[in-house]
């Protein structure tokens, strides 16, 4: 039993060490409010931000772990970014790791707040983004914009 726990910790440390994720910098204002619900809790959810230039080339900017029920981060307004959420699980028994990714293009508008609801329940995942106007008087759900459909401007 102790050996099993030891092996798990070593594996976890190795996985953490192998991670190529970089910490997403603090951007103000924090216009993305991410609410996460995962079940089982062993699912690791993360949000990744990539800058998108006029030629649709992307540049990875960083990752924020969604390890709390509510996480806030800032995504620059007036510029398009790829917002991607990954759900990762690993099974020591099966010796396998898996990860599934949801990605969308997002161009935040100045002063607007974006509520992102991230769920993973019984092997079904969903990411819903709502845009709220500065006065909070109106809100609309944003349709996913497939990054593969990005058109150079």
């Amino acid at each position, binding site marked *: 039993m102790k050996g099993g726990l030891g092996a798990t910790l070593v594996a976890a440390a190795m996985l953490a060490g192998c991670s190529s994720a970089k910490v997403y910098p603090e951007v103000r204002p924090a216009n993305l409010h991410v609410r996460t619900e995962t079940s089982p809790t062993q699912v690791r959810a993360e949000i990744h931000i990539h800058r998108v230039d006029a030629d649709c080339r992307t540049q990875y900017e960083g990752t924020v772990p969604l390890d709390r029920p509510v996480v806030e981060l800032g995504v620059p307004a007036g510029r398009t970014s790829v917002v991607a959420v990954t759900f990762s699980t690993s099974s020591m028994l*099966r*010796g*396998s790791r*898996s990860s*599934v990714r*949801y990605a969308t293009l997002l161009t935040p508008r100045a002063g607007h707040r974006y509520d992102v609801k991230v769920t993973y329940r019984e092997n*079904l995942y*969903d990411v819903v983004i709502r845009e709220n106007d500065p006065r909070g008087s109106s809100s609309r759900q944003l349709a996913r914009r*497939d990054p593969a459909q990005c058109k150079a401007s």
Partner: protein
Amino acid sequence: MFQHKSRLMLTGVALVLAGCNMAPKNADEFRQATRDGVRLGVASVETFEVDRSLRDVSSALQRKASECLNVSVNWRATNTYGNTRGGVHTYKPTFVANASKAELHVQRKRSGGGDVDVGAPPDGFYDVVVDATPVTPKRTRIEIYQGDKLMRTALRGWATGSNLGCPDLTKR
């Protein structure tokens, strides 16, 4: 356990059919093969009705299929001896609709990891086929041919509008 047994039997039937070059090559053949499988107790067709118009159901199936099923799943597994193998499963959803019917066909092409899809159509074996037909202007009948529990749960959620989540296809 039952599900595992049933899948093994279905795989066996598929292999026999593939060996005879009889694997379903299109959605119609897949429906027929599934009906035949139902008679043998190795396949199933799930039928239910939803209180939504065909248009709403059709639009949800199209949108969610494009969002969730147009994917490639890379898998990798290591056995207890430390041997690792991996491969790719590429899913292809095809949506077809007219005023009186909507259809969603999902194919899965497997490559690598020792997977050999003998006799499969170019985009892979049919995995699941969904038909939606109107019962009344506000009620629609759904038929799901085959598919595993996860896929069916997702398709049911899209059809009813109760859960628009994507299936985590790495869990199949």
